[in-house]
């Protein structure tokens, strides 16, 4: 255990090594550590933001879905209403056509019966004239008694 100049040499070496560490070792390592800490903080912030974005997007999607469902229901009820309307219209149209056909047929039938009646009248008149002709033969002149015959026809 002797003291000698080794002491001062050690002192100088000590300070030089500390200086070297300060100059070349400490700053790059601290820089890397700080940068990594920054990256991790950024990553965590990005994760939080992504989480918030996801929640937002999910909310938006469910909103859209609800809206779509609502509009589809609305659409469907509108369509149903329209279909019912169409059916109603078609039914009314059918009824109207049927009625028109019936009326036309009835009119036709009435006209035909009228015509038959006219024809029958003509025949009856002719028959009456013929009968009367046969009976009266000479006394009745068809031309002279045309007015009378016509009157008789219209009374049938």
């Amino acid at each position, binding site marked *: *255990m*002797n*003291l*000698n*100049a*080794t*002491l*001062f*040499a*050690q*002192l100088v*070496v*000590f*300070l030089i*090594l*500390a*200086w*070297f*560490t*300060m100059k*070349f*070792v*400490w*700053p*790059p*390592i*601290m*820089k*890397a*550590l*700080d*940068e*990594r800490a*920054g*990256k991790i903080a950024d990553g965590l912030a990005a994760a939080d933001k992504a989480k918030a974005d996801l929640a937002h997007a999910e909310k938006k999607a469910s909103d859209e879905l609800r809206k779509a469902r609502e509009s589809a229901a609305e659409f469907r009820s509108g369509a149903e209403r329209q279909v019912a309307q169409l059916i109603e219209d078609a039914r009314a149209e059918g009824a109207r056509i049927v009625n028109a056909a019936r009326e036309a047929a009835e009119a036709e039938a009435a006209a035909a019966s009228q015509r038959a009646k006219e024809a029958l009248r003509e025949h009856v008149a002719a028959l009456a004239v013929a009968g009367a002709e046969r009976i009266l033969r000479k006394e009745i002149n068809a031309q002279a008694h045309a007015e009378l015959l016509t009157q008789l026809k219209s009374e049938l």
Partner: protein
Amino acid sequence: MAAEHAPNASEYIVHHLTHLNSLGHKQAALVDWSVFHLDTLFWSVSLGLLAVLILARAAARATSGVPGRFQAAVEILVEMVESQSKSIVHGDRSFIAPLALTVFIWIFFMNAMDLLPLDLLPRIWGGVYAATGHDASHAYLRIVPTADLNATLGMSLGVLILCLYYSVKIKGLGGWMHELFTAPFGSHPVLYPINFAMQMIEFVAKTVSHGMRLFGNMYAGELIFMLIALMGAAWAGTASGALLWVGGVIAGSIWAIFHILIITLQAFIFMMLTLVYIGQAHESH
């Protein structure tokens, strides 16, 4: 080796405790400023360079991405030192924190030399010494620089100088002078000399105990390794000698394992005290 040249126990220990110095023989005076311990200088400088080069390598490859194992290990150390220095020193730590890291790693490396086989490097050195035509019995070599009071006191003196530097830097020369004469007892002309004396005692005690603590621990540890080695060397043929050899193996293993704790702990304590003393220089009374 011939029987008459085999060293006895005390010769063995004295040989192991003698430094390789610039005189070539044991320093006679207790204090001689013209002498250098070549072994202490060589090992401390080599280990210091090794330490800072390993750190510089880690620093050069440091990325902010995913670190490898080596980088992560260095980062753990750096973070540990950084958090300790942050909690102790309040102020600019751009030099103090790297200083603490250097102190820790360098002292750890120097202490770790204690774990090498006690006779390995001295025996190799003895062989080299003999091969160059010298007497191998004068081939002195001590490989644990922190078991040399010069090394530890040199470092604690460095810490003292930094304490004085930061005292002046933080408090200003006037503020520091004021503190030297008014703390710890108070500002009164009668108390000035007492305060000053207390401050001087504090500085001396801090510095001496700082260096002596590390030296004492490592010196004692080295000495115990020598005693265990002597125990193992006593195996020459007899039954009790064989038991001693077994005892030497067991004791050596236990002491070496325990020493892993000591070398780390002492390096840590030296670093913490360095931070505490420099931190005190930052705080005004």
